[in-house]
Structures are given as C-alpha cells and as structure tokens.
C-alpha cells in the first residue's frame, strides 16, 4: 500500500498541501480579527470610549478586542471563553461546554445508530421486494428534495404528548434524518454487483442470504460510508434543532438559543465553534472506520 510505505516526497507533499491550507486558515483568522474590529468599533466608540476626550487608535483597537458583549467577538475571546468553561467548571456543570457537547453527541449517536439500522433493514427489503421497490422507493428518493427537518417540531409534540422526553425525541429526529441518505445509498450499493457476479452466485446455488452476505453487502460498503458521513452530519443538525423548541436546558442547540436570548455573543460563538468541532469529529470517526474497513477488505 502506497500510504504505509515511507513516501520519499512526503515532506514536499506536506508542504504542497499543508502550506496552502495553513495560509488560507491564517487569512480567515486575520479576516475574523478585521471583522471584529470593524463591527465593534461603532459600539466601542459609543459605549466605552469617551468621544469628547478623544482616543488613540490603539485604545480603539484594544477596546474592540475585549468588549463584554461584542457584536463580533475576537477569536481569542472565543478561545478563552471555551477554555474557561472547559477548565474552571466540573464536567457535570451546565457551565461546562463539554457537558453540552456530550448531551448533543449522545442524542446524535443514538439517532445515527437507529437510523443506520433502519436504513440497512429497509434497503435489504427494497432490494428483495419488487413491490416495495416500486411503491416505496420513489417516495424515499423524493423526500431528499423536501425539507424533512421541518417535521422536527411535530415529532417533538407527538413524542412529548406520548410521555417521552429527554434524549428520545432528539434521537428520533436525528434518526429520520440519517435514515434517508443511508437507505438511498444502500439500495444503490446492494444493486451494484454486476450481472456476471450475481449469476455466479446463482450457479453456486447460493441462497438469497448467502448472496446478500457474501456478495451484495461487501459490494455496497463503498456506497454506505459516504452516506454515513452525510447522515451523521445531518443527525447533528437534527439533534441541535430538536433542542430548540422545548426550552431544553442542555445541549449545544439550547446553548445557542439561551445565548441569543441574553445577548451573550461570546457564548453563542463558543457553542458554534464546539458544534463545528463535534461535527468534524463525528465525520472524521466515520471516515476512520471507513478506511479501516475498506483497507481490511482490499487487503484480504
């Protein structure tokens, strides 16, 4: 495998790809600081600095970078706020952002697992039943063009009046968001074996189960993983949206909402940064599993 062998030009490759990404990220950071300065300057002049007495641009700059409720917090303010909440408070305190990350991640992962299982079962059924394929599949494909996330408040109301609360409604919303892409991709993947391969299974007198297990499922794996990456990202959005309406006290979505109620901009931004990191972590984990599974398969 090319990846594992020590590549002679790896240092150059790192420079080739890492340097541009680094430059772009540095530019973005610079842009963020510039935006913080530009957006906060009017407020700073009005509320903090004394316009009559005059002020130097250094004073203006330092004020815009350290306002309590800035229109746009500077990156270091967000970083400090995040670090403070991570280190100064115990893990089970709602002031600790990791607590909210854990709440959101829990419902996302639970929904992701349920949605993936449901999608797998349904795709196997669809591939083996002409009726389901003809009657149900078009609706599942069509649902991709519809904002299914809009049903979230209904799901919350229904499950709430049935007595479910806490993690269950959020997981259900994450589940149905994961379920659609997984089903569509798996139906495609389970159908991907060539005619010759399916006919060979037939000549071996393989049963449907054996054909599914030995041929169709392995062939579908490359289709499954991209759908899982899409699904887990969609599930995270679903879990966060599910935290909004019920006035949930915990979770990144609730954190965003309380932040916007009380005008705590720094809090919104640190919740935003952590939800972005959580999204990246979730998709990276799926990608890592993908690499592991697909490598094992190609190596065997």
């Amino acid at each position, binding site marked *: 495998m090319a990846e594992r062998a020590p590549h002679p030009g790896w240092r150059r490759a790192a420079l080739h790809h890492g340097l*541009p990404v680094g430059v772009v990220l540095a530019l973005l950071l610079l842009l963020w600081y510039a935006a913080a300065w530009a*957006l906060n300057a009017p407020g700073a002049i009005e509320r903090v600095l004394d316009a009559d007495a005059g002020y130097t641009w250094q004073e203006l700059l330092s004020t815009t970078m350290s306002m309590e409720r800035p229109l746009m917090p500077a990156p270091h303010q967000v970083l400090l706020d995040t670090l403070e909440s991570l280190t100064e408070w115990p893990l089970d305190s709602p002031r600790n952002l990791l607590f909210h990350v854990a709440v959101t991640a829990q419902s996302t992962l639970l929904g992701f697992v349920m949605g993936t299982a449901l999608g797998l079962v349904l795709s196997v059924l669809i591939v083996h039943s002409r009726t389901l394929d003809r009657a*149900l599949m078009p609706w599942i494909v069509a649902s991709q063009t519809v904002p299914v996330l809009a049903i979230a408040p*209904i799901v919350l109301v229904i499950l709430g009046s049935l007595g479910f609360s806490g993690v269950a409604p959020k997981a259900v919303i994450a589940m149905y968001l994961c379920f659609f892409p997984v089903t569509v991709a798996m139906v495609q993947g389970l159908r991907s074996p060539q005619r010759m391969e399916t006919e060979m299974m037939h000549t071996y007198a393989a049963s449907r189960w054996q054909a599914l297990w030995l041929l169709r499922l392995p062939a579908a794996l490359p289709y499954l993983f991209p759908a899982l990456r899409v699904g887990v990202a969609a599930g995270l*959005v679903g879990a966060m949206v599910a935290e909004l309406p019920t006035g949930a006290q915990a979770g990144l979505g609730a954190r965003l909402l309380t932040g916007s109620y009380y005008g705590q901009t720094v809090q919104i931004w640190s919740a935003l940064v952590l939800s972005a990191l959580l999204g*990246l972590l979730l*998709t990276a984990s799926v990608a890592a599993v993908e690499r592991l599974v697909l490598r094992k398969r190609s190596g065997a």
Partner: protein
Amino acid sequence: MTAGQWAAVLLLGALAAWSVVRLAALDASRWAGVATAALFGAWVLVFWEILVRALEVPRVLLPAPSLILEALAAHAPRLWADAVQTVGKAVMVGWALGCGLGFTVALAIDRLPFLQRGLLPVASLTSAVPLVAVAPIAVMWFGFEWPSKAAVVVLMTFFPMLVSTLAGLRAAGMLERELMHSYAASYARTLLALRLPCALPFIVSALKINATLALIGAIVAEFFGSPTQGLGFRISTEAARMNMPLVWAAIVVAAVAGSVAYALLVALERQVAFWHPSVREA
C-alpha cells in the same frame, strides 16, 4: 367501530395490498413505476384517514388528511404570505447570492492553484459542520426580517457551489484542452468554449443540492427568531399552540415548494446538460 366495519377495513387493506403488488409486477415501463408509487401514496392517505377516525387518535398526535386539507384551504392566504416570506424572499435571494458567490469565487481562484489547494479542503470540511447554527448570530446582525435568513442560506449554499464549480472546471479532458491549446485559444476562449460547458453538469447538480439546503436553512433559521410570518415561524409557533393541522399544512407547503424547485432545476439540467451521460440515461 363494530366488528363488521373492522372486517370491511381489513378487506380494503387486502384489496390495497393486492392492487399495489399487481401494479408493481407489471412491465418495467416508467409510467407503471410512477403509477405504482402514486397508488401506494393514495392508499396510505386513505388508511391514514380511516384509522385516525376509527381509533379516534387525538388531533394533537396525528390529524387526519382531510383536516390538514381543510387547514390548507382555510388558511390559504396566510400560508401563501408565509411561503412568499420564506421561499420568495429568504430562500430565493439567499440561494441566488450564495450560488453566485460560490461560482464567482471559484472562477476567481481558477488561475491560483495555491489558493485552490488551500481553500478546497477547508470548503469540503464545512459539509460536516452544522452551518445553520449561525442563525442566532445572523438574527443579531441583520435583524428579525428575511435578510438574516437569506444570510444563513448564503453561507450554507456558498461552499457546495464553490467545491462543485472547482471540480467542474477540472473536468475537461486533457485531449480537449490540448486541442484548444493547439488552436492557440486564449484562456478566456478555452474557459467559455470548453471548460464552462464541461463544468455545467457539476454546477447544476450543486444548484439542485443547494435548493434543498436553502429551504432547510431558511426554515430552521426562522425557528431562532423571525417576524410574525414565514413557514418556519408558522411551524414552530403553531406546534407550540398544538394547532397541528395548520403545522402539517405549512409542511405540505414547504414540501411542495421543495419539490417544485427541484423539478424546475431538473428541467433546466435537461436543457443545458443534455449531452452528459447522467442526463441521457435518465
């Protein structure tokens, strides 16, 4: 319900299953497929109506389709105003701006491979990030009206368009490029005559993905705070008031808007990318 009525329902169920199975077993023509799906959908609606009435399911849990239709008719002007607010303003403006910006930036950095190599991984990673969560910030900056929703939509649609356009601009084959080179075609000429046409299928597919994303973005952004109009506002406030038929009616409107937008873009794709294998096969 009496035992006789239950027997009738069961009989109807058997009839429904039989009709769908028989229709699905017909030839493989496209219309048979569409008819099967339509028939299945119609039977689902029929049984939804019957079972909700028979079991007296509370309206809060699941309103009957007839009630949803009633709400749709009774509140038509209000729902139309909501659709205009959300789809006509926030989605359209945001989608057009986001797609336009993504396309423009992709073209602008077409000749700067350094920036491309730096921007592409960052832009791809944003698909894993819940971008819609910037909604509270957008509300703070642009106010409660539709511009804040459009801003969220711009952010959500920008990156898919950027990534797709960059991929599309690289899609032209080496052979064709060398042919253009041998004609001594200028950069602009090659772009117009070869590379942009080759990129069209990528661009149109990004437009399609973005149409759905934009609708989701605008509706979810309205959950975070909005004027007293808009589909997302209607859904969240009426759900809080337990007025479920109207919530379902608003969702029907959103679903129809999404499907119509998608259908229009597929028609556009047939027009501009008719030569591409993925279009010819369909």
